């Protein structure tokens, strides 16, 4: 079953084409990766999928809803969450509060209700804390609960972004280079985490440069270059595709699982 269907998607910035006439479908419960050289348009694609950019043309269908034309917080309401290539943490908040922000859509208290501490707001607060702790536990971050986000090492922050996104209980998680800047141990941890997310029934759309990681965790891979589709298929198909090897992977394929 298709969760996300992108058709005829195009976007250019002042004459520079970032994405042109791109089509692909992400099946539910899979890890679907988008790879391509730097500047291929991967982050632009993510920004359109999450409603930050509006495409020039094309449609993005998420279940029965159209994403194009929705503001990011409306896209989030549909069940799409994401992490960012360059960390977008709330550095002015504790780890727990960062993740509690992720629960925003699962709770309802309004400004006036919370100001007056109306009944229900406290119960909701406890519920949010519970969800946040679950999410932190899922990402092995419990020990950092009360720390300030600003005081944490980079590798931990990468996972904290994921914990925050998961606290929203999304159906689709967009991950923009989760392993960028991580060392080998952290990358292994990240690989396990992506697997666990997928096993928990969340569809993952992954952009990543670490080919070892991509080949291991992906069910399907889309290769884009200059904003268009170069190839699509299973990891094995992609590794043996001569066009991909030429354009991106280079002469030899040494990333076999």
């Amino acid at each position, binding site marked *: 079953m298709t969760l996300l269907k992108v058709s005829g998607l195009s976007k250019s910035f002042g004459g520079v084409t970032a994405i042109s006439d791109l089509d692909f479908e992400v099946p539910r419960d899979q890890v679907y990766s988008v790879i391509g050289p730097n500047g291929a348009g991967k982050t632009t694609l993510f920004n359109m999928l999450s409603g930050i950019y509006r495409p020039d043309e094309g449609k993005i269908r998420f279940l029965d809803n159209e994403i194009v034309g929705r503001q990011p*917080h409306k896209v989030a309401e549909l069940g799409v969450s994401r992490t960012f290539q360059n960390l*977008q943490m709330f550095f002015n908040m504790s780890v727990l509060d960062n993740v509690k922000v992720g629960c925003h*859509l699962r709770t309802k208290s309004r400004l006036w209700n*919370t100001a007056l501490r109306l009944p229900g707001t406290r119960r909701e607060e406890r519920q949010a804390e519970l969800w946040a702790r679950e999410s932190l536990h899922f990402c092995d971050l419990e020990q950092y609960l009360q720390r300030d986000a600003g005081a944490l090492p980079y590798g931990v922050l990468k996972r904290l972004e994921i914990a925050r*996104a998961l606290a929203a209980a999304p159906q689709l998680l967009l991950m923009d280079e989760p392993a960028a800047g991580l060392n080998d141990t952290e990358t292994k941890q990240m690989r396990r985490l992506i697997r666990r997310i997928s096993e928990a029934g969340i569809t993952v759309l992954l952009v990543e440069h670490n080919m070892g990681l991509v080949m291991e965790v992906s069910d399907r891979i889309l290769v884009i270059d200059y904003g268009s589709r170069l190839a699509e298929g299973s990891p094995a198909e992609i590794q043996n595709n001569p066009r991909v090897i030429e354009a991106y992977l280079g002469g030899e394929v040494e990333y076999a699982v």
Partner: protein
Amino acid sequence: MSHHRGFYLLTFVAVVLPLAFPDNYFVTVVGVTAALHAILAVSLNLLMGYAGQISLGHAGFFGIGAYVSAILTTRYGWNPWPAIIAGLGLTCVIAFTLARPILRLKGHYLAMATLGLGIIINIVLVQAGDFTGGPDGLGEIPTLSLFGWQVDSDLRWYIVIVSVLLLVVWLALNIINSRSGRALRALHGSEVAAEMMGINTTATKTGVFVLAAMIASMAGSLFAYQQAFVSPDSFSFFFSIELVTMVVLGGMASTYGAIMGAIILTFLPEFLVVFEDFEVMIFGAILMLMMIFLPQGLFVGLRNLLRRIVAGRRSAAEAAEPEESGRDAA
């Protein structure tokens, strides 16, 4: 919740002070002004410290509340209470209408736009002489009364304004440690990430802007009744700057810090009177030293210093004990 400990302490101090020093000039006269400033600083802090949206026009909303109350009671014979509500209503409409175009701006542009807003409100107060009395202001404003209890002495004003301050602090603390408060801080931390977590950043900014403006308007009405006289000078650009300074001095994103900043900036001139002409210089020097040595503000700076001392003692005693956590955004 641990954030209520500070609130109880504040309430305790507020109650004990006038009991211990009745008819003390610093408690019931300067203290009332400090409490009024604290109301403004706490409201501005919600907008500036927590949501990260600077406003250099907060005195404008303070002025709207004061003038609506002054005009309706003196020229139209309204009862002071509905006049407060009318001030809140007008402020709400103005703040809501202006919030969208203004809060679209960021950084220096937002500062300039709010600065312009404050100045425009001030100009209207000066120029609309038929209504506002122009630069001479409006006098003979009646005082408040509550079921026949006339608020007509320094001590009674202390009771009223400090009660309102405590109410505002309670509201602010409740907001900060809730879903809405996290949305405000998230907005400050990363607008794009906040949106992606489902926070309607435009609506959130508008909400906090309107709330802060309405609290300021409320304070303005009280100010008008307490002084029995208003003039545009009290709501000038310089007062907006003073309010921003209070927030920064006490510590951004700290409600108690904002109160501390308001108290210090209200009392400082009283003690600097002996220096007369040097007052402004000393004032500036203190601010400069603050910015250099305690940029996170007095309250947060001192609290962290205390924590470090406590933690240092503790770790000396029991080496393996982890540092105290339980950090609360108060």
